[in-house]
């Protein structure tokens, strides 16, 4: 056995490292929380890191997990060692191939960061719902409980699959294990080599399909033999458990870490036993050991090999003394009489107890329980409660633990104050930071520093909220002399150290609830040390006094500013942590931080290193301990998360989620079918902006551009009669409207929601009006928000009381007119400066009152539908977009289904109307049947007629009348929108998009094209342009961007538009109107600058403009209805490329990076891309000029177009 080499990594890295070393072909597709495994593998291969046999594994990103599984199946059949990584719905997409791979006895390991499945809601967090859904595929299943085990089991799995020929699913809990940072023993390559049977690898190669020794596999079989064939594999499955155990034993010899298929821990003769698998087993072990030390007779079994299920190994592991067992499942199977692991164990026990070999005096009682769904906390208190329940005469079966189920009364109560010894043994620290302030990365760095400098065991776990702008992160760090098995968060009264990196959190969170007695509290505050105390909320002051907390303060922002660090405070706060936590000698710690900074920025960032060093040194001087008075004196209280007048549901559910108390919400309050009210984002005042826009009404021309571009709908314009402003706050700005389209006495106001604005400044940037005497003063200018917050909040609230202007009277074909319309998508959690949301908001303004939205999974579904609040909202009539997210892969089909339902109901309503004609007025019936709803006025009239109809139907009582009453609203037009990103439209959902475009149905597809998988962190899609660096395309994407627009034009009746609102807003507006009016499928491909482009999003519009001018993003509209009028359907809205493509791409890191890393490739890609944009423009230009009849298709036209002769010469 070699001396251990300790490394600090998370579960994903641990799995990926073994997978990369032991495979040749790796097919990947991003999905949270498994994406980092693919990213690691891709990174290692792109840097030429070889596998165990000295060759670099080939990595390929596929269009979906189904594709990845197919590719792996093929690679395995052709004799390669191949693997993949996935989670959740991605795993479900692999099921068909998994049956095949197992059916053909093909060795492979799939590594799974186990995650919840989308049911009543999507969740990215961890449980076993996904892996339990594939337990019938024939894959063996091996569970890991910690990052150390992930690494170990990944290797054991690889060895076992090769020897057994049975493919293996290696899984570990998403986030809790996949993202937990832990100091672990690294496995060296000799060990890996010793683990893997060369003979087994040769066997795999020899079985490969090869024309040199051909066979056929994958036949179709008939009733005569299929069944026998299916049974032929049994001997392999029978042998598998012993093969796995042999591998585990061999591993133990090599490393000293012994694993068992079923591993018993606890008292020698326990009466009570818990059986479970996954990360919860760690907390259970910690609790069992503690309870044993307290004299309780308890034990536990960790299930490692779940399939094939080795009942005899299980029975061997259960002590004969056991009388009562609880089997815990981290999944739910609605309608079943128990979850899978429970039933397997009951069956095994029953079979055993009925046999002659029965070792029990009487068959133990077996209870099943559910815990930990979607990473729900699973704590020692809960485990203790389960043992206590078992001690009862009649313990509850099919219970739940960790929630309050007051609906079906399944839940067990637990003692929230219960703690194990580990709580005293570990140093526990919590850090509250903003997602963008680098707190998490600094903490990851601190863990590594402590891990390397000491013998302490370390653990880091990071909790994020669901917002992309102003996201709050809470880091949970533990350090201790023994292995850390506390797979749960640091909780009330436990933290020895708490840091608040953002003063604004003082008004949001009771951070000191977590503080232990005599804890240290580090606060970043702009107040002088002697004023800090007064700034604390009263409750915090009381806690500080009661718990004898030591308070330290630093003005980190000032230190950062003065050290040249701008607003980066992470190293400053990290320095303070080391300075006062006492975990390492101060000097050593400071040196370690400096070393880490140097390693991060290296020689290339010497200036940044210098700034950091300066900041680190300055931090120590600026850190002060605050003297604690005897009494709490503050009058400051933490405001309630939602206003007092909010609806009950919002108070009881939404408000509690906002304030971090969601765990306490009982089952009875939860919507049982996942239905939530819209419009709640307005309640959640996040107050993120340092600066906000201020309207200069003397300069403003009412152009409407600012509300158009605002990503968060935080600046609005409204038109109203002047007399309504009599009770306006004194600072409320309004003035007479410019232009003649509004009656005399009409006023306009541009109003900002100060606590919803994120401070991106895009409204100011787009503002075209400048002061004649001062070019830098515009009609909108940024000003510090704190001074304006209170007055503008009043103004905003007043603004909201003003009525919306009558839509019918607005000229919605102008930016000015359309921007008076109320956005029904507001205050989303999208990134600051998001390039997607203005399009979504625009659609909601124009069509929101009649919109159904099918939203593909991705950024738009996260900022559009992640709890606690929703940005989709409704107007004063109660109308607004109705929204749902089905999956990632099926969104087009999902939206088509909505259209079919709308049309069918409309058709049936018309039939009923005709049937009921004798009882209704002919005039009304005809008007309803023939209603022209092509304008806002027409829609309003039809709605009025529907109201009339309803009144008449009220007086009728036939079944038809009742049915029509139900469906009457369907007599008015509905607008079906299918929204998603490029990952969906170009890749995983393309088949569906293609089919829906071909279907001819009236749906509107909006593709928010960021040219990358944004939500999962910037992986390349088929929309990624040539030469752009993205994850999975580290060397620059080698092929060009797919021309989705051109493909769509191939169909008969598809309206296609290519838009970029920041380059030509009126063209975007026209496209939205035309798309919606088009009676057939419409496709709007919308250029959406994204943080993944590596450019500050305050330049969002500039980037859009350059994308258009360089030819990267030509603007055009293709309207097939023009063909019938004898016109060419294609209208180009942008001129020929007028700036070199290079000038555009050099401004974005995604491209410019390549010149630094692969300059030759970058030059080659640039040349190709420059030619392509020229040619594409020429091609479109010619298409737009040819004579077009109904038979013409772009592909036919393509034959007649010529490459620009100039380009041919190049």
């Amino acid at each position, binding site marked *: 056995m070699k001396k251990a080499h300790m490394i600090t990594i998370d579960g994903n890295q641990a799995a990926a490292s073994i997978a990369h070393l032991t495979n040749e072909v790796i097919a990947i597709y991003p999905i*949270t929380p498994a994406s980092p495994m693919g990213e690691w593998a891709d990174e290692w291969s792109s840097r030429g890191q070889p596998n165990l046999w000295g060759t670099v594994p080939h990595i390929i990103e596929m269009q979906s997990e189904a594709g990845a599984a197919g590719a792996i199946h093929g690679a395995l059949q052709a004799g390669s060692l191949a693997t993949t990584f996935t989670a959740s719905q991605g795993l479900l997409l692999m099921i068909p191939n998994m049956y095949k791979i197992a059916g053909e006895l093909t060795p492979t390991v799939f590594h799974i960061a186990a995650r919840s499945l989308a049911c009543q809601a999507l969740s990215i967090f961890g449980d076993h719902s996904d892996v339990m859904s594939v337990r019938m595929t024939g894959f063996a299943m091996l569970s890991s409980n910690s990052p150390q085990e992930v690494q170990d089991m990944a290797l054991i799995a690889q060895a076992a699959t090769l020897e057994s020929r049975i493919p293996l699913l290696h899984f570990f809990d998403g986030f809790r294990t996949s993202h937990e940072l832990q100091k672990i023993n690294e496995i060296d390559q000799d060990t890996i080599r010793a683990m893997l049977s060369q003979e087994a690898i040769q066997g795999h190669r020899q079985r490969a399909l090869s024309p040199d020794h051909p066979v056929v596999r994958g036949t179709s079989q008939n009733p005569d033999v299929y069944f026998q064939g299916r049974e032929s594999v049994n001997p392999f499955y029978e042998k598998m458990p012993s093969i796995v155990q042999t591998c585990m034993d061999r591993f133990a010899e090599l490393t000293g870490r012994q694993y068992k298929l079923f591993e018993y821990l606890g008292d020698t003769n326990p009466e009570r036993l818990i059986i479970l698998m996954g990360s919860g087993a760690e907390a259970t072990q910690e609790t069992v050991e503690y309870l044993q030390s307290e004299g309780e007779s308890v034990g536990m079994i960790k299930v490692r090999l779940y399939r094939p299920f080795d009942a005899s190994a299980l029975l061997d592991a259960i002590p004969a003394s056991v009388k009562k067992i609880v089997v815990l499942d981290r999944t739910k199977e609605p309608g079943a009489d128990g979850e899978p692991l429970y039933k397997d164990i009951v069956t095994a026990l029953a079979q055993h107890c009925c046999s002659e070999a029965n070792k029990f005096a009487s068959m133990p009682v077996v209870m099943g329980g559910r815990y930990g769904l979607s990473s729900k906390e699973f704590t020692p208190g809960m485990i203790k409660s389960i043992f206590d329940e078992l001690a009862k005469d009649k313990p509850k079966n099919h219970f739940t633990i960790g929630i309050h189920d007051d609906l079906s009364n399944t839940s067990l109560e637990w003692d929230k104050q219960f703690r194990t010894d580990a709580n005293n043994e570990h140093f526990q620290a919590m850090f509250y930071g903003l997602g963008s302030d680098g707190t998490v990365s600094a903490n990851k760095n601190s863990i590594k520093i402590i891990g390397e400098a000491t013998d302490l065991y370390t653990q880091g776990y990071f909790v994020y909220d669901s917002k992309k702008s102003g996201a709050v992160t809470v880091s949970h760090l533990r350090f201790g002399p023994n292995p850390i098995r506390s797979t749960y968060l640091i909780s009330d009264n436990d933290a020895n150290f708490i840091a608040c990196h953002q003063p604004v959190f003082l008004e949001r969170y009771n951070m000191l609830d977590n503080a232990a007695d005599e804890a240290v509290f580090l606060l970043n505050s702009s107040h002088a040390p002697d004023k800090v105390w007064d700034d604390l909320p009263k409750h915090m002051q009381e806690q500080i006094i009661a718990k004898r907390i030591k308070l330290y303060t630093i003005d980190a922002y000032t230190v950062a500013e003065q050290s040249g660090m701008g607003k980066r405070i992470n190293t400053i706060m990290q320095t303070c942590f080391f300075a006062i936590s006492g975990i390492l000698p101060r000097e050593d710690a400071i040196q370690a931080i400096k070393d880490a900074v140097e390693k991060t920025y290296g020689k290339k960032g010497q200036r*940044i290193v210098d700034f950091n060093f300066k900041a680190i040194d300055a931090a120590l001087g600026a850190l002060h301990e605050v003297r604690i008075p005897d009494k709490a004196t503050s009058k400051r209280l933490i405001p309630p998360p939602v206003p007092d007048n909010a609806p009950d549901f919002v108070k009881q559910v939404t408000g509690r989620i906002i304030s971090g108390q969601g765990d306490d919400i009982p089952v009875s309050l939860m919507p049982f079918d996942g239905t939530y009210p819209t419009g709640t984002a307005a309640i959640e005042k996040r107050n993120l902006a340092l600066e906000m826009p201020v309207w200069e009404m003397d300069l403003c021309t009412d152009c409407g551009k600012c509300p158009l571009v605002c990503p968060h709908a935080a600046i609005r314009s409204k038109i109203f009669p002047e007399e309504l402003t009599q009770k306006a706050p004194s600072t409320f700005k309004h003035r007479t409207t410019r232009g003649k389209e509004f009656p005399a006495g009409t006023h306009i106001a541009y109003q900002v929601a100060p606590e919803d604005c994120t401070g991106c400044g895009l409204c100011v940037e787009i503002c075209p009006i400048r002061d004649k005497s001062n070019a830098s003063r515009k009609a909108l200018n940024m000003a510090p928000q704190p001074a304006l917050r209170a007055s503008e909040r009043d103004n905003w609230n007043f603004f909201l009381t003003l009525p919306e202007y009558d839509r019918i009277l607005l000229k919605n074909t102008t930016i000015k007119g359309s921007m008076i319309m109320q956005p029904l998508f507001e205050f989303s959690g999208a990134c600051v400066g998001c390039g997607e949301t203005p399009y979504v908001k625009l659609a909601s303004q124009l069509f929101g009152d009649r919109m159904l939205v099918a939203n593909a999974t991705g950024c738009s579904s996260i900022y559009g539908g992640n709890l606690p609040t929703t940005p989709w909202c409704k107007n004063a009539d109660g109308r607004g977009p109705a929204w749902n997210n089905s999956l990632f892969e099926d969104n087009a089909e999902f939206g088509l289904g909505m259209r079919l339902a709308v049309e069918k109901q409309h058709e049936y309503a018309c039939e009923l109307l005709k049937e009921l004609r004798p009882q209704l007025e002919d005039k009304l019936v005809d008007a309803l049947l023939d209603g022209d709803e092509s304008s806002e006025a027409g829609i309003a009239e039809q709605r009025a007629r529907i109201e009339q109809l309803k009144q008449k139907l009220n007086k009728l009582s036939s079944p038809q009348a009742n049915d029509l009453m139900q469906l009457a609203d369907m007599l008015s037009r509905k607008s079906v929108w299918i929204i998603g990103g490029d990952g969906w439209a170009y890749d995983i959902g393309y088949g569906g998009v293609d089919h829906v475009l071909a279907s001819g149905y009236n749906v509107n597809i909006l593709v928010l094209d960021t040219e990358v998988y944004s*939500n999962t962190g910037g992986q390349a899609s088929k929309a990624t342009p040539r030469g752009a660096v993205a994850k999975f395309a580290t060397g620059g994407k080698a092929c060009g961007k797919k021309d989705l627009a051109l493909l769509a034009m191939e169909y008969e009746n598809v309206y296609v538009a290519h838009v970029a609102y920041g380059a030509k807003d009126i063209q975007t507006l026209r496209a939205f109107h035309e798309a919606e009016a088009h009676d057939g499928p419409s496709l709007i491909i919308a250029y959406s600058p994204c943080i993944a482009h590596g450019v500050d999003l305050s330049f969002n519009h500039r980037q859009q403009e350059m994308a258009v001018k360089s030819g990267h993003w030509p603007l055009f509209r293709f309207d097939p209805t023009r063909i019938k009028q004898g016109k060419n359907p294609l209208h180009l809205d942008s001129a020929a490329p007028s700036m070199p493509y290079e000038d555009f791409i050099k401004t974005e890191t995604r491209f410019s990076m390549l010149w630094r890393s692969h300059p030759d490739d970058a030059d080659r890609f640039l040349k190709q891309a420059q030619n392509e944009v020229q040619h594409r423009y020429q091609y479109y230009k010619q298409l737009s000029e040819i004579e077009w009849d109904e038979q013409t298709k772009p592909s036919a036209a393509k034959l007649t177009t010529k490459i620009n002769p100039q380009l041919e010469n190049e």
Partner: protein
Amino acid sequence: MVDLSTEYMGLKLAHPIVPSASPISRELDKAKQLEDAGAPALVMHSLFEEEIQSEAEHFSRFLVEQGIGHAEANSFHPEPIEFKNELDNYLEQLQKLKQSLSIPIIASLNGISMDGWVEHGKELQAAGADALELNVYYIPTNIFESSQYVEDRYVELLTELRRHVSIPITMKLSSQFSSVAHMVKQLENAGANGVVLFNRFYQPDIDLETLHIKPRLEYSSSIESLLRIRWVAILYGQVKLSLAVTGGVHGGKEVVKALMAGADVAHVCSEILGKGPQRISQIRDELAAWLEEHEYESVQQIKGSVSYKNAIDAGYYERANYLSVLDSYTHAPGVWR
């Protein structure tokens, strides 16, 4: 045969017409063409301190600190394992030029801060630069910043660099000093081996459509050489360091004038950018022809011959010539029209 050779900061050059800092040195082929056209030395394009700095900040922001704190994505951009920054590229290009060219290569540093100069200067020397040209591009916009402060800043920078670098250093200066001559003397005292007169700055221009400022730089014209010639003439003999004229040198005649004023080299830039590298040899031939025609033996002989010190009418290098320029538009008194 006229001896065209000259000495510039101790570098022996075949003739005094040296291409000044321009994008030409970015491409090896073009630099080679310059050498083939007879360039006796080459000043590289400038390494901008700000560029290195902003590049580092940019990558810090978009690679190191790219997280937004979202559970699904804590980064958006793969971090390259290895990449070259502006400094790497510059050093690499310098090495390539040194390998493929046999003429001296003068590296050009453009910046204003202490750290940048010293560190980068050391690296340029290590990469084989034969000399350094320091282009201090500093615009004092603060009304409380005195000219003394500005001058001290230049001197401190040079002093610091001189301590770490042994190769010759020349300072490329702006004409906007209250006392150019004194400034140059101070630089000489601080260890400068030469001065280059004068910088041609990018000038900010107002775009009347957008009201944004756009930096502009256009090719020089011959008239601009006069300002340089004047100051070289004034300095010649008063200081010992090498003198170079840059800006407005387009032909043999300007070179002759620069030499007569006392320059050791005359830099050309716009002329070769606009008309091609062969202009170097053509100007050299123009110079040779002029010298031959006027029966001069060597460049050395002509150097400083019409300097402030040696000129027949040296007063015109002072304020007096202002009047004479105006006078030249009127006829001399006493002449019958």
